């Protein structure tokens, strides 16, 4: 365990150095958050039909999304990508570690660092000035934290999987090109998932991506509670396990066919 914690904390601390990027990110997220709040403001003013969420819930959902955007921007781990391209991945295999766990730890630090650096200031600013509501109850708040951690694990397992896909594609960004639009639509970061038409809801529920942010956010809002909330968290957990297993199997197959480039 120590090996994985060591790589996790070393990457995490290294990434915390990128403060300028974090400050710029906070500014950008606040700006786009305001734009999206204004869009929904116009939408609620002009529409008289019943909506799946109240206006206040939507605003909170948007700000949570801006605060935790890092969970939906799943860049491949650039260090591993370079290693695979140059053949340095050979060294990675001479280490006495479980390679999946090792790469997962890197992915986790790669998501956790920007999440922490951006979420805290946006929570504070949006909570004080921009209409971000507190969680509906203490219980919802605690369950939100559990489920947000699940979202972080899911994001890391997706990053690990896209990184592993580089063993086949070598150049480019692997599965990432494919995954990003899917995530934009089906995580809820583009449009909150409750606004999707009824006919598409079974599809949305069947995909893993709602576990990234939609599940924790709706628990926070009380939009999911009781058994529905528990079921959503369990489904999130099941998907995390499935993604880890898929990642492990894919990695094992990729390493068997590995051709170390050059030399």
């Amino acid at each position, binding site marked *: 365990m*120590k*090996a994985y*914690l*060591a*790589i996790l904390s*070393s990457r995490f601390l*290294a990434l915390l150095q990128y403060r300028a990027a974090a400050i710029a990110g906070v500014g950008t997220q606040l700006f786009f958050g305001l734009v999206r709040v204004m869009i929904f403001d116009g939408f609620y003013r002009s529409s008289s039909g019943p909506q799946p969420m109240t206006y206040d819930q939507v605003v909170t959902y948007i700000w949570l999304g801006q605060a935790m955007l890092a969970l939906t921007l799943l860049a491949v781990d650039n260090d591993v990508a370079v290693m695979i391209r*140059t*053949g*340095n991945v*050979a*060294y990675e*295999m*001479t*280490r*006495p*570690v*479980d390679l999946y766990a090792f790469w997962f730890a890197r992915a986790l630090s790669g998501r956790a660092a920007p999440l922490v650096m951006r979420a805290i200031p946006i929570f504070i600013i949006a909570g004080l000035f921009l209409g971000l509501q507190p969680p509906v109850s203490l219980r919802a708040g605690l369950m939100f934290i559990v489920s947000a951690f699940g979202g972080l694990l899911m994001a890391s397992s997706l990053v690990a999987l896209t990184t592993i896909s580089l063993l086949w594609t070598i150049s480019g960004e692997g599965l990432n090109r494919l995954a990003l639009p899917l995530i934009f639509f089906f995580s809820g970061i583009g449009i909150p998932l409750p606004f999707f038409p009824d006919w598409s809801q079974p599809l949305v529920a069947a995909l893993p991506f709602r576990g990234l942010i939609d599940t924790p956010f709706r628990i926070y809002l009380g939009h999911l509670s009781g058994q529905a909330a528990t079921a959503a968290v369990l489904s999130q957990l099941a998907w995390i396990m499935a993604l880890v297993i898929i990642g492990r199997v894919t990695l094992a197959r990729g*390493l*068997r066919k*590995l*051709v*170390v480039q*050059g*030399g």
Partner: protein
Amino acid sequence: MPQIVVEDLVKTFHIARRAPGLWGGLKGLLKRDWREIRALDGVSFSIAQGELVGYIGPNGAGKSTTVKVLSGILVPDSGSVMVMGRTPWIDRIDYVRRIGVVFGQRTQLWWDLPVIESFDLLRDIYRVPQDRYRASRDELIAMLDLGALLDTTVRQLSLGQRMRCDLAAALLHEPELLFLDEPTIGLDAVSKLAVREFIERLNKQRGMTVILTTHDMDDIEALCRRVMVIGDGRILSDGTLADLRASVTRERWLTVDLVDGAPVAAVTDPDAALIRQEGKRFCLAFDPQRISVPDLIARIARNYPVHDLFVENPPIEAIIARIYAQRRSSGALTAVRGFAASVDKSQ
């Protein structure tokens, strides 16, 4: 039981081939043409604890592939490998804890971390107990003279400095076996000597088994008692350097310097062949069983205005070149002149 036993190792790579030009590119979209490369074609050898073995061969001969299979990175198509009682690619995690690997063309240090932090990370990755780690780290820092480099980030190191740090990094966990894949590549003369001296000390003082692949024949002559030569995926020769020489040729070289201004176009002798001429320096190849060294020297000195002369063994490059030449012409010994020309070209 030897420490390493390799039997009949075969590894093929499949490489996508594309016909040249636009049409070839379009065809490649529809149907991939695969070319098979047999990197290892039945390689067998065994190595005892404490040996320092040189593993040489031209580019693409299968050296690195062998090292990568032995260090658990690649899985072979067939054949068996037992190193310290384990099969590398099956018990990879337990196995790699006991070996050290250095690839001269790559670094295992973290690019943007100071050297000492890379070492600390490796301590955690290999789970080296703190006291053992400190002792081994301090010893390596002293041996490789790394004291001044520890706080530098790896990307700021020169190649020679980086290689010394990489050697230390591969040894922090006190492996029993060390694989060095071209550790002196690109190094200047001073750094090369430092690396060589270090490898020799590891082997002599700690009894560590070292397998060294290199293109630098000076590395081999300076370090290795045993040399394995690989070509086209097969072991062509395996033995001591002296045996290797003897098996290929008994030939010695006599280099003659004539006095300045001597009106001589060429130095010739019925029992020796001229293989090279640079100004007033002539190099002759001869068989010491056909003509003794004193006789040849006496005759040359009688016939030519000699300023200086010396006798030497052909350089190991020439021996290796001849092994390959023999293999290409399926065993037939090539004429001395033809061989000498090929050596000249290779230099």
